[in-house]
């Protein structure tokens, strides 16, 4: 009852949006498609939710073929598109009622499933959807996607443009939904959210770079990575990029993440180099890579 994608390709005119993508989402899994804008995430979602037909390849969702059994899929999946697509002129309650009715059910029948999410917006149930804040719209959209008790839930960038507090709450809700035997495919451009998934596929320019659990993906990072600090960030970046042995130089919060081309890297040598460039308070310490480091390393190739 999961998702099976086999060699799916899709082009728009002469632009290849999705290039020969294959992956499998196990039943009950919380699976993340992690990649930036333009990676092909939305195209893939639209193919899997039967709104778009692929040029090549096959896919099954909840056991149904996305082309032949498209009607069955539409009854079995919930889809929350990236762009808010509920009725702005209907109230919260009217929107929810509308979606329940379309799917031949009622709010009461599946209230148990949406309770956790819906309770947070219920006090405003007579407010029009167009007048809601970003976080409330997101909760309403999720309620509407869940009202017919789907087996598989598709969430396309549900947290884009959402502040860190609401993002954290949203992921806590997803974890609870997963306990209710719903398979979830979620896309996000926020790499920190990847760590919350069971497995992730890193995707860029229509291709999958890597598939694994977040922990395993981080372990595959091929190099030692260092946190480098200096009081002048711009000076530090420029100096590191000019260093002949630099493999990668990326700002990461208050530090720069640095990897060296050589096996035997001597941090004292680099420290002296940086101090000779008039940088102050220089410190260099070994650190752990995170998913963003892995993504950047893979997308360089």
């Amino acid at each position, binding site marked *: 009852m999961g998702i099976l994608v086999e060699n799916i390709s899709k082009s728009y005119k002469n632009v290849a949006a999705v290039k020969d993508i294959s992956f499998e989402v196990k039943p009950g899994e919380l699976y993340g498609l992690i990649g930036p804008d333009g990676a092909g995430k939305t195209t893939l979602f639209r193919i899997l939710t039967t709104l778009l037909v692929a040029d090549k390849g096959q896919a099954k969702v909840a056991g149904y073929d996305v082309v032949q059994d498209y009607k069955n899929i539409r009854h079995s999946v919930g889809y929350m598109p990236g762009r808010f697509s509920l009725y702005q002129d209907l109230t919260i309650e009217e929107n929810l009622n509308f979606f329940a009715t379309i799917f031949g059910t009622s709010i009461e029948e599946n209230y148990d499933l949406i309770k956790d999410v819906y309770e947070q917006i219920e006090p405003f149930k007579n407010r029009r959807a167009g007048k809601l804040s970003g976080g409330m719209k997101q909760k309403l959209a999720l309620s509407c996607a869940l009202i017919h008790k789907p087996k598989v839930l598709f969430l396309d960038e549900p947290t*884009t443009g959402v*502040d860190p507090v609401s993002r954290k709450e949203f992921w806590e809700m997803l974890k609870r939904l997963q306990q209710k035997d719903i398979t979830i495919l979620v896309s996000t*451009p926020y790499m920190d959210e990847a760590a919350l998934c069971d497995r992730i596929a890193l995707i860029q320019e229509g291709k999958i770079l890597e598939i694994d659990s977040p922990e395993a993906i981080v372990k595959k990072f091929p190099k030692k990575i260092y946190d480098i600090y200096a009081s002048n960030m711009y000076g530090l970046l420029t100096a590191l990029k000019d260093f002949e042995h630099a493999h990668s130089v990326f700002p990461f919060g208050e530090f720069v993440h640095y990897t060296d081309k050589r096996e035997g890297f001597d941090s004292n040598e680099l420290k002296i180099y940086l101090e000779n460039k008039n940088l102050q308070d220089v410190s260099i310490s070994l650190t752990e890579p995170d998913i963003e480091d892995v993504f950047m390393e893979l997308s360089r190739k």
Partner: protein
Amino acid sequence: MKEENVIISKGLTKRFGGFTAVDAITFEVKKGEIFGFLGANGAGKTTAMKMLIGISNPTGGEAMVAGFDVHTQQDAIKKNIGYMSQKFALYDDLTVAENITFYGGIYGLSRKQIREKRTKLIETLGLGEIAHQLVGSLPLGWKQKLAFSVAMLHDPQIVFLDEPTGGVDPITRRQFWEMIYKAADEGTTIFVTTHYMDEAEYCHRVSIMVAGKIEALDTPKKLKEQFEVSSMNDVFLRLARNIE
């Protein structure tokens, strides 16, 4: 050298009927500073920014932006600042070169200045081959880098960036920040909002708005010390949680 304040806000307030969206915010931003303006959705960031860039009238308090009064000199403010947002930055149906020309005209540059800026910008960004392609066909990361440069066409004192990097890939996001560092290094003041907390760490100072008020304002380092946490993400969560 005396440190010059290019934004001075004293009790700046915006009320919509009985609702106070921005509640007496007071802060200063120095020349060449990268100032992070953070807050949850609905905390009042956008409303505050609209007043500072001269497109919304405050209902109370005062502010000077680039030396001009937000109550009485809104047109002068607009000429002396740059602005870009994630939602709208460039015209998709114009080419790269046409967008530059158009904005140059809007900012009141002469034809000669526009021509020079256009040539230089296209060269610096390495857009030579696609200068005559529609902006709509460019990857988002390219668009955002171009939009930032266009917002700086008229050499403004301050650039306001409203979530400039949402959805952009991690490498381009960092290239974008390198452009910000460079601009700040050259003396331009950067006023930026973001939901990426690692980007908050890149700012010289950060303010965090909660329910219309600035609840915290300091360097990322001091904020982390003050709240006894290890990241700006935790500072943010701590502040928003406490209010609830």
